[in-house]
């Protein structure tokens, strides 16, 4: 076999490019494995073609590598048995002028997948926690509202209780004198009581039972001192248990009139509802 003739024929080029018919390619394979010179030349042709292709400015996008590694069945991968021999000369790989690129292992990619999976899990967990918390929060809000209602009730009860206690204290205290105010003829039936402590000058109005008043009107208590009506204050509520009024040292009688809201300087006598004398 004339080696140089084979080399110059161009058949080796066709062989490398895969352009030889299969029977000729088979023959060439045998020759190459027999003659190192041929093998050497085939390698040089291959290197040249590789270098031409590697001179390309085009590159696949990085996502291709990710997809590729994701497409490899996990069962296919064998664990690394030993580290590559760092001391072995590697001129062959660097000859083409290509810098060895950093190796991203498939395991790293799998770790990324694991990380992604656990992140998804974490997100779901957080979602569940938020959902449950939200639900619990709603329950808490409902309970809070119920508690508020109970508290308000309790506070009202306590106020009422206090008022009763106050009333009891007033009525049981012998220093307080109770004066019944009776309805004035021509007016609807109504009643109220005044408790007056002459020593301390404290004056309370209790057991008020007067007709409901329009929003622009208000009941006003008067003390008649030396024949003149003096305002003892406005009634907050026509149905209240007890309300402390203006102090009086002296009074001949007490009366309630219906006045404009905010009260009047002098009583409107036509609108007097109840009245009672102190003695």
């Amino acid at each position, binding site marked *: 076999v004339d080696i140089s003739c084979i080399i110059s024929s*161009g058949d080796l080029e066709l062989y490398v490019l895969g352009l030889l018919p299969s029977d000729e390619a088979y023959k060439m394979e045998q020759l190459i494995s027999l003659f190192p010179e041929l093998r050497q030349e085939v390698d040089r042709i291959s290197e*040249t073609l590789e270098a031409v292709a590697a001179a390309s400015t085009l590159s696949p996008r990085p996502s291709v590598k990710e997809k590729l590694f994701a497409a490899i069945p996990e069962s296919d991968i064998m664990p690394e048995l030993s580290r590559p021999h760092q001391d072995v000369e590697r001129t062959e790989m660097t000859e083409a002028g290509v810098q060895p690129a950093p190796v991203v292992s498939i395991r790293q990619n799998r770790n990324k997948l694991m990380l992604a999976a656990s992140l998804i899990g974490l997100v779901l967990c957080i979602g569940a926690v938020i959902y449950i918390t939200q639900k619990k929060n709603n329950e808490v809000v409902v309970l809070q509202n119920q508690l508020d209602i109970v508290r308000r009730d309790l506070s009202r009860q306590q106020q009422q209780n206090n008022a009763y206690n106050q009333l009891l204290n007033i009525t049981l205290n012998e220093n307080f004198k109770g004066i019944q105010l009776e309805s004035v003829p021509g007016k609807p039936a109504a009643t109220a009581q005044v408790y007056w402590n002459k020593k301390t000058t404290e004056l309370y109005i209790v057991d008020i039972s007067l007709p409901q008043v329009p929003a622009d009107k208000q009941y006003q208590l008067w003390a008649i001192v030396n024949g003149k009506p003096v305002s003892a204050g406005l009634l907050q509520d026509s149905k209240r248990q007890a309300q402390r009024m203006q102090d009086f040292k002296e009074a001949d009688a007490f009366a309630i009139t219906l006045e404009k809201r905010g009260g009047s300087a002098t009583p409107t006598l036509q609108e007097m509802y109840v009245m009672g004398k102190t003695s």
Partner: protein
Amino acid sequence: LTQIITYTEEELVEKLKLKNEQAFGFLYDHYSKALYSVIYQMIPHQEIAEDLLQQVFLKIWKNIQLYDASKGRLFTWMLNIARNQAIDHTRSREFQNQGKTIPISESVYNNEQGSDRPIRDSGLNKILEKLTADNRKLLELSYFLGYTQEEIAGLLNIPLGTVKTRLRTIILQLRKLMELNKK
């Protein structure tokens, strides 16, 4: 921190045959660009070319046991897988129907003025422009378009034997160019 590992071709093949993932990562990093450019010249469509490249590497991974180092370099073996993959795709009906690129049978090489198919790759152009127009055409047909010897002879209107001798001349010329480039 990324680890930089280099292998001799022998080591690389040995590790690939043991289905070593790191070696495969290295293989991809080292050869994906060259194989991609070969595929892309045949099928100038990024998505399809990338998809084919992925299939090529999967084939390499699955069939590495079939690689016989006594027959040639790893790149030669992979180059043929890549070219066959691209040719198969080009000839598939699916591809013809997609009409995304021109099938080989209707290639611009079939008509007179179409002889200068533009290669949209400045890196390749830089090398190929050093060749004569005829030689460049011959290289593109044989290397990047996967045409057979007979097809090339017919298209360039030259005797069959001339195809391979001219190819030989082109390779020698390129070798000199690449060596000059290296310096």
